[in-house]
């Protein structure tokens, strides 16, 4: 090929321009997410601000929009959060410790790992069918708060186990060796050398998964959680509702006021999730300093 300097220069210039143009296209694509998030928040604030008043937090659901509130849903979500978080933490971290620290490499631990990664890809609504069959019917818990909590625990476990495993694996081997060299037993080593340095990563994973569960609707619809609950659950076997279910119920009602109520409910739900995520960051920073 015979190319004069001028032709070569022009070609290089074209390639550079193409690079610049594509950079803009890529940046624009990345910005779509930000733009949509802003539109979503603005839309919800505009729709929801009207009903964001004290009565929203003190009143039960009502057929009259002016008297409707979400106290039963908010309390239901908080009850669920308070039991789901420790329950899924204990089982999830327990399973992760077993798989990383105790299990021998072999068919048993491989099989457990395959089960966990399979579970992580199953749609949440299928967990609802599981909860309906096992907890609601077989164990006769009915459509109670307890059945809902158990179903949600199984839903969040795979993600908690995987993220905890990663946090535990990231602990340097030297910490374990040092502990063993001091004569500590296996469990003492796990307790005093491994967990303290893995706990920030573990907690981040647990809080993020639990906040995912707090926003989840489909499995609870399937286990038959009621959408109209004009009372507070008195015990774990009582009927219950949670914020996403209440929001879903309001979205389905025809009057425009109920759409606005749904938007108010969404604001409350998003604030709850933001608080949980900030807690995750605070806890992580606090523990990270102490090590």
């Amino acid at each position, binding site marked *: 090929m015979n190319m004069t300097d001028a032709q070569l220069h022009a070609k290089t210039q074209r390639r550079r321009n193409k690079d610049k143009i594509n950079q803009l296209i890529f940046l624009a694509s990345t910005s*779509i997410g930000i733009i949509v998030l802003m539109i979503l928040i603005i839309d919800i604030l505009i729709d929801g601000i009207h009903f964001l008043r004290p009565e929203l937090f003190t009143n039960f659901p009502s057929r009259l929009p002016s008297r409707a509130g979400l106290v039963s849903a908010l309390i239901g979500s908080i009850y669920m959060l308070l039991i789901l978080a420790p329950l899924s933490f204990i089982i999830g971290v327990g399973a992760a410790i077993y798989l990383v620290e105790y299990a021998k490499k072999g068919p048993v631990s491989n099989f457990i790992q395959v089960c966990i990664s399979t579970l992580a890809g199953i749609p949440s609504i299928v967990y609802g069918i599981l909860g309906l069959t096992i907890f609601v019917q077989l164990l006769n818990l009915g459509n109670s708060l307890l059945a809902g909590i158990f179903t949600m625990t199984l839903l969040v476990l795979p993600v908690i186990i995987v993220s905890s495993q990663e946090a535990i694996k990231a602990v340097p081997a030297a910490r374990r060796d040092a502990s063993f060299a001091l004569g500590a037993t296996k469990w003492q080593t796990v307790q005093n050398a491994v967990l303290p340095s893995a706990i920030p990563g573990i907690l981040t994973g647990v809080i993020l998964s639990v906040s995912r569960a707090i926003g989840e609707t489909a499995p609870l619809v399937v286990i038959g959680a009621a959408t109209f609950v004009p009372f507070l659950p008195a015990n774990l076997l009582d009927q219950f509702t949670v914020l996403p279910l209440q929001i*879903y119920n309001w979205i389905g009602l025809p009057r425009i006021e109920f759409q606005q109520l749904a938007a108010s409910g*969404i604001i409350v739900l998003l604030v709850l999730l933001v608080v949980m995520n900030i807690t995750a960051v605070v806890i992580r920073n606090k523990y990270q300093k102490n090590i």
Partner: protein
Amino acid sequence: MSAPNQTNLDMFKNNRSHLADKIVPTLLFLCALVSVLTLLGIIYALFSESINFFKQVPVIDFLTGTQWFPLAEEGKEFGVLPLLTGTLLVTVIACIVSIPIGLASAIYLSEYASDGVRRVLKPVLEILAGVPTIVYGYFALSVVSPFIQWILPETSLFNALSAGIVMGIMIIPMISSLSEDAMNAVPRAMRNGAFALGATRLEVALKIVVPAALSGIIASFVLGFSRAIGETMIVTVAAGGSPVLTLNPLESIQTMTAYIVQVSMGDVARGGVEYGTIYAVGLTLFLITLLINIFANYITKKFREEY
């Protein structure tokens, strides 16, 4: 101060920790066993009721029937195809939205963005991934559907297009972050080699990085597809509840997940053939997502290029 019982205390402590070392592994194993039991429970739940259902409705009729009227008073029809095409229609729209945008943002974040820009953009994508699906459903119904109706006035309020677009937006962060992980795994030296030959960043991205990370990128598409198939609340709220066999995205359709919700919200008596439909549809959904996830796994393992 003397410590007469120091030795005893040590022994006691040692015994206690030995005891802990005996019990703890069993307790931890039981925690791990929960996952195995969950999977077995899911398989048991889906199959036990589905078998009853398929005793009354032949599998062939279920898989090839084009009419889905299981709740009708008379002339019940149990052909799952309308639900399958409805699911597929929304999922394909979601992929059309999310794959180009997700891949483009992965390329931007991995190949173009400075550290500062990345520190701002990545958390925003994470927030987008953490928004509950019911909120996306509300967004589809209150913003996207009216917008589509404004452009194409004959569109019904509940339509597959709106649900598909919003579902695509929901999946963007997933595709973007999985693809970016795959691109980050491509060694710096390969990029530097191309740069040294005078390649632009675009040429490096498209001719070096994307081909080298292709298995991870395609796996991210497949996982996004599978996620879209199992998504429930967006389609329940925004896509409607009419199981019709159509490929027109402007019509109201029903997906498999939305059907399960519809039956769960109603008062269908337990044990009947109508009740069995949610198990049969749930089983279909379970098997489809399972096969797709296995496929994604296969792609990553089979075509991974090790550096």
